[in-house]
C-alpha cells in the first residue's frame, strides 16, 4: 500500500560547487536510488528532460560521475510566466566501494530515469568461506 501514498514535491537540490565555477549557471543533483545485489550495483537517477544522447558517465579513481544535459532548443520561443522549478544540467558523483568491472557497465534510459548496472569484478563478489573441522 506504500504506493498509494500521496506524492510530495521534492525540492531540487543544487550541486555543491566546492570551487567557484567559471559560469554562473546552476546544476542540480538528481534523486538517486542505489541498490546492491551479489553480482552488481545498480544506480537509478531521475533526470527529467535529459535524453540518452546527453548523458555522460565516467568512473575515475573509484568515483562514479553521471552528468546529464538539457536540450534547451525545446524552450526556444517560450516565455516563462509562472515557475515552480528551475531547469539545468544534472550532475552527481558517488564513491564506489566495490570493485566494478568497468567494461561491463551498462545504462538504460527511460522516461527521464537512467538505470546504471555496474557489474562487480570477479574478485569483489562475496565468497562463501568454508569452515573446516580440524
Amino acid at each position, binding site marked *: 500500500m*506504500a*504506493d*498509494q*501514498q*500521496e*506524492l*510530495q*514535491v*521534492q525540492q531540487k537540490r543544487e550541486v555543491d560547487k566546492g570551487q567557484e565555477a567559471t*559560469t*554562473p*549557471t*546552476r546544476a542540480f543533483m538528481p*534523486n*538517486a*536510488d*542505489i*541498490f*546492491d*545485489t551479489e553480482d552488481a550495483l*545498480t544506480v*537509478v537517477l*531521475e*533526470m*527529467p*528532460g*535529459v*535524453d540518452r544522447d546527453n548523458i555522460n558517465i565516467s568512473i575515475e579513481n573509484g568515483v562514479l560521475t553521471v552528468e546529464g544535459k538539457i536540450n*534547451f532548443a525545446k*524552450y*526556444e*520561443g*517560450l*516565455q*516563462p*510566466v*509562472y*515557475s*515552480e*522549478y*528551475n*531547469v*539545468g544540467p544534472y550532475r552527481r558523483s558517488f564513491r564506489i566501494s566495490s570493485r566494478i568491472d568497468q567494461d561491463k557497465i551498462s545504462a538504460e534510459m*527511460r*522516461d*527521464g*530515469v537512467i538505470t546504471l548496472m555496474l557489474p562487480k569484478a570477479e574478485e569483489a563478489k562475496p565468497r562463501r568461506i568454508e569452515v573446516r573441522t580440524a
Partner: protein
Amino acid sequence: MVMGYADPFETLFAFQRALENRLSSDWLGTTTAAMGAYPPVNVFQQGDDLVAIVELPGVNKEDLNIQAKENTIRIAGQKTIEYPENVSLHRRERLSGVFDRTLVVPMQIDPDRIKAEYNDGLLALFIPRAEKDKPRTIEVR
C-alpha cells in the same frame, strides 16, 4: 525573453534567471487550490498560447490521466517504483505514490484542442488560448 544561441552558457543563465524571476509568480493568482502540490509545473507563453511543462520522471504514460474542462486542467496518475527482490538498498531518495493536481488557467482556453506529450520524463501540455479571448487590434477609422 528571446533565446539566442551565440553563447550557450549565457543562454542558460538568462533562462534560469527568467525562471527564477517567475518563481511562484502570482500569474496563477489565487485560482489554484493546489499550489506547491505534486507535480511541479512551469508555465510559458508561446505567442497567444500557453505551454505547461511538468516534471514527472519515471511515470508510465498509461498511468497518466489528463482532463481538461473549461479553464481547468487536471493532472492525475501514479508513479510506481519496483525494486528487484533480494537487494540491499543503499540509498532510497526517489518517491512513489499517487498524485492529483488541478490547474486553473487565468485565461479562456480551448480545452478540446489541448495537446499533451510525454517525453524524457517531462509532460508538456500545449494549451491554445480561446479564439474569443485573443486580443484583437481595433482599427481606428
